[in-house]
Every structure is written in C-alpha cells, then in structure tokens.
C-alpha cells in the first residue's frame, strides 16, 4: 500500500492506482471532474484534460514537484505523493481554460438537447467555466448521419472523449463505429452507412458525457427534470435487468442503466430492456432513485413516501 495526500487528506491505496482513483476513495469536493475517464472501461482517460492536478511532491524518494499539471486519471500514485487539486488556484484556472476549450466547438443548444439536466459538460461549465465566450469564429459543424434506429448521433455536440468507442470495443463484438479523420475534422462515424445494432450498443448513450449520443426512442419526448427516476428490475436473459425507469405519471418514458455518483454505470443493460420494454407491466418497480438535491432532476422528486416521514400519516 502507498500513502498519498490529496488536498491535505491522507489515504492509503494499492500501488498502481491513479490519483483520480485515490481521490474518489476520499470522496467529496476534492475529486477532480472527469469527462473522458470511465472506471469500468479499460484504456479510457487522458483525453479531456479536465482532471488536471498539481503534484506538489512526487514521492518520498524524489520530493521535487512535477514540472507541469498532470492528468489525474492516468498518473499512478507513488508513496508519499502530495497532490493539490482545489487548494491550488493554478489548477482551478487551468481547469477553467480546459472548459473554455471544450466549449469552443460545442453548439450550446442545451434548450434543444435531450441531455440537458444530466449533462456532465453542463455541470462542468456551471462549476468551472465562465458564463461568457471569447470565441468569435464559426463553430465546427458536421453533416447529420444516421447510425441506426435506436441511437441518435449529434456530432456537433461531441467532445471526442472516446468513451463510446471503448464501450463498443469492450462490451460488444465487432465495433462498427469509431473516430474518423484527424484533428479539427475528427468525428464519430460508421464510415460506410453502417447501422449500430449490437444488443449492448445502447450503453453508448449512457457513457456519453454530453448529448452527442441520445436515445432515439426518447427523442424530444420530455425533459429529464419532468420525469421521475425509479429503480426497477426485470428478468432478462442477456443482462442483469437492473435499470432506472424514467416515469411520467404511470408511463415509462425511457429506461437507462443505474448510474453512480460519478455518472458511471455499474451494470450495463441490453437494448431489449432499454428500448423495447416501456410498459409498466414489464418492470418490477422498487422505488424512487436517489437524486442529489443539487440536481435539477430532484424537482418534484420525492424519495420517501408519505408514511416514511413522521407526522404525515398515522403510524400503524
């Protein structure tokens, strides 16, 4: 076990784990945000640069600080390492600049986008970015392409985090989409009008941190903050069947996998559960899902029934 200190909090982690993993073990405000790193996808991380931190002391043997800010998702810890995240104003300034870079080509069509309200880039920009843009040139745009009956691709919104590529590689056999071209022209595509139809391909929607990949069966149906997320399960042959159903009254508007506090899916679900089972009779509803009070989704979302709150109902 190696000892690391992040923003003054000390923790012991396994050798080989990264600074971000150590920070997540501590939890709270000191966890660097991550747009491309996804703990369950091998090889992810190191692309978006939002998790930059300052290493004030490299290790016990070599106490010099690292010369530049490092990406915490891909830098392994060393014994005696001291890391500064929110205590270092330079880190926050760099993160603000990274957010500005990510937003340069982002269309900011949040009023139209289905991801609004659960978008990581929205959260990040709200917390770290500034509300004004300095960019005056025309934003990068792409022609619309159809990638299948279930998934809607909006390349304009993509931040090229590669999460969906790793998902298709590691969850499905035979990936049919990828990142084409280079640099400014890099785009997610299927090259020759191919449709993504693998049974686990719907998970690309959940791993996408922005609204580049959205659910076609839920397109423009409602906004996430009008829906009520409920934990539900069903017997499924190809996945765990544990999901979150988003309800409006007694109707199921969409089905997603259950996400943890970092927006990561613990158990991926199959396309049958996600796109085809939208009848309340298909699911056993367990109860309301926990939503942070800071999220807009917690609007009109009650996690306790009237009987659970003292004084609202007569105790039996």
């Amino acid at each position: 076990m190696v000892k690391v200190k992040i923003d003054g909090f000390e923790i012991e982690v396994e050798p080989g784990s990264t600074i971000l993993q150590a920070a997540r073990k501590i939890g709270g405000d000191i966890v660097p945000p991550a747009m491309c790193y996804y703990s369950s996808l091998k090889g992810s991380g190191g692309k978006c640069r939002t998790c930059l931190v300052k290493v004030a002391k490299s290790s016990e043997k070599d106490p010099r600080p690292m010369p530049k800010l490092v990406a915490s998702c891909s830098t392994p810890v060393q014994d005696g390492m001291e890391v500064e995240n929110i205590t270092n104003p330079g880190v926050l300034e760099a993160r603000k600049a990274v957010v500005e870079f990510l937003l340069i080509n982002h269309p900011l069509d949040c009023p139209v986008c289905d991801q609004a309200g659960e978008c990581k880039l929205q959260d990040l920009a709200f917390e770290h970015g500034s509300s004004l843009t300095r960019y005056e040139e025309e934003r990068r745009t792409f022609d619309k392409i159809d990638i299948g009956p279930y998934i809607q691709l909006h390349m304009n919104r993509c931040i090229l985090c590669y999460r969906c590529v790793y998902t298709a590689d590691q969850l499905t056999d035979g990936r049919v989409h990828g990142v084409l071209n280079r640099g400014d022209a890099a785009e997610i595509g299927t090259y020759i009008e191919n449709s993504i139809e693998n049974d686990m391909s719907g998970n690309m929607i959940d791993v996408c941190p922005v609204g580049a990949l959205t659910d076609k069966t839920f397109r423009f149906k409602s906004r996430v903050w009008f829906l009520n997320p409920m934990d539900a399960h069903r017997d499924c042959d190809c996945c765990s069947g544990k999901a979150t159903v988003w309800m409006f009254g007694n109707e199921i508007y969409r089905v997603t996998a259950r996400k943890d506090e970092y927006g990561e899916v613990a158990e991926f679900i199959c396309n049958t559960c996600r796109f085809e089972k939208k009848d309340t009779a298909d699911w056993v509803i367990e109860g309301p899902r926990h939503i942070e009070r800071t999220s807009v989704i917690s609007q009109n979302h009650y996690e306790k029934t009237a009987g659970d709150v003292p004084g609202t109902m007569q105790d039996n």
Partner: protein
Amino acid sequence: MQSLTNRSKLVVNKKMTFWERIYLPAIFGGMRITLRHFFKKNKTVNYPEVKRPFSPVYRGMHVLKRDENGAERCTACGLCAVACPAEAISMVAAERKPDQAHLYREEKYAATYEINMLRCIFCGLCEEACPKEAIFLTDRIVPASLEREEFIYGKEKLVEPVDQRIDISLRQIKSYPQ
C-alpha cells in the same frame, strides 16, 4: 397595567348632548361632503373605452414571440415550466420536419404550449428563464370569463400573429450596467 403603545383609550359611556341626539347636524355634515364630491373630477375611467397607460414593466398576458422571419422562437426547452412557481405551464415538444423551417426556428418546437391563467401569478419568472427570448409578459390583460376551461391558453392565444406583432421592446431595455 402599563400600556404598550400609550394610544389606548378608556371607553366611557358619555351621555349625548341635545344637538348630538337629534342627529340632523351630523347627517347634513355628511351630505355636504358627498355633495362636494359631485363637482370633483372623476378618479375612475370607463375601462374598455378608456385605458390607463401601463408601466412598461407591467406583467400581464403572455406572448410567444416569433423571430424576424416569422418563425416561432420557442423550442420547448421546459425552462419556463420548471421555473414557474405556480406550475401553470405545460408543453409537449415535437421534432421539426424539413419543410417546416420557416415555421419554427429550432429543430425542436412546442407542439402544444399551455398556460393556465387561473394558476399563473404573473411573476415573470418564465420570461426570465427563457433562453430563447420567446416568452414575454405584456401589458395586455387576461379577459374575464365564466368558464374555467377558457383560462387555459393554448398556442392559438399565446403566439403572436405574423401580421400583428406585439411590441415588447420597452421591456427589453436593461437598466443594469453591462
């Protein structure tokens, strides 16, 4: 006991004098005041014919604006509905067809948009929340009605007609420094 305000008066059942008992002087005194008001200028106006000038920030009936090409600005983002403290606004979104570009400004539009004017408290938070400058409160008054259903205003009553634009330019003057 010490009084809190020193304004309390002790009630006494005083016996009235002769002049007070015949009441007539008091009645004529009151009539004099009434008569004086006959010759004064009226404070009221005959409403539908005569209208008082409203303040430019008066918050009356809503309007859903169109852009300079006549396309509806509202994109059914739901921010007005989530900002509404009275939960008066509801909407259903739909996707624009390729031949409807002149009708709706964005890819998504409000297929139905309803404001329940009985619930609305005219606070103007919807106007403040709108990212597309689509909804504004105007100086028009919501007319009275005998039926509750008539207070649910749909798009046919809220969207401004293309040929009769509703001027909201006075509302958009921002006094705070940039």
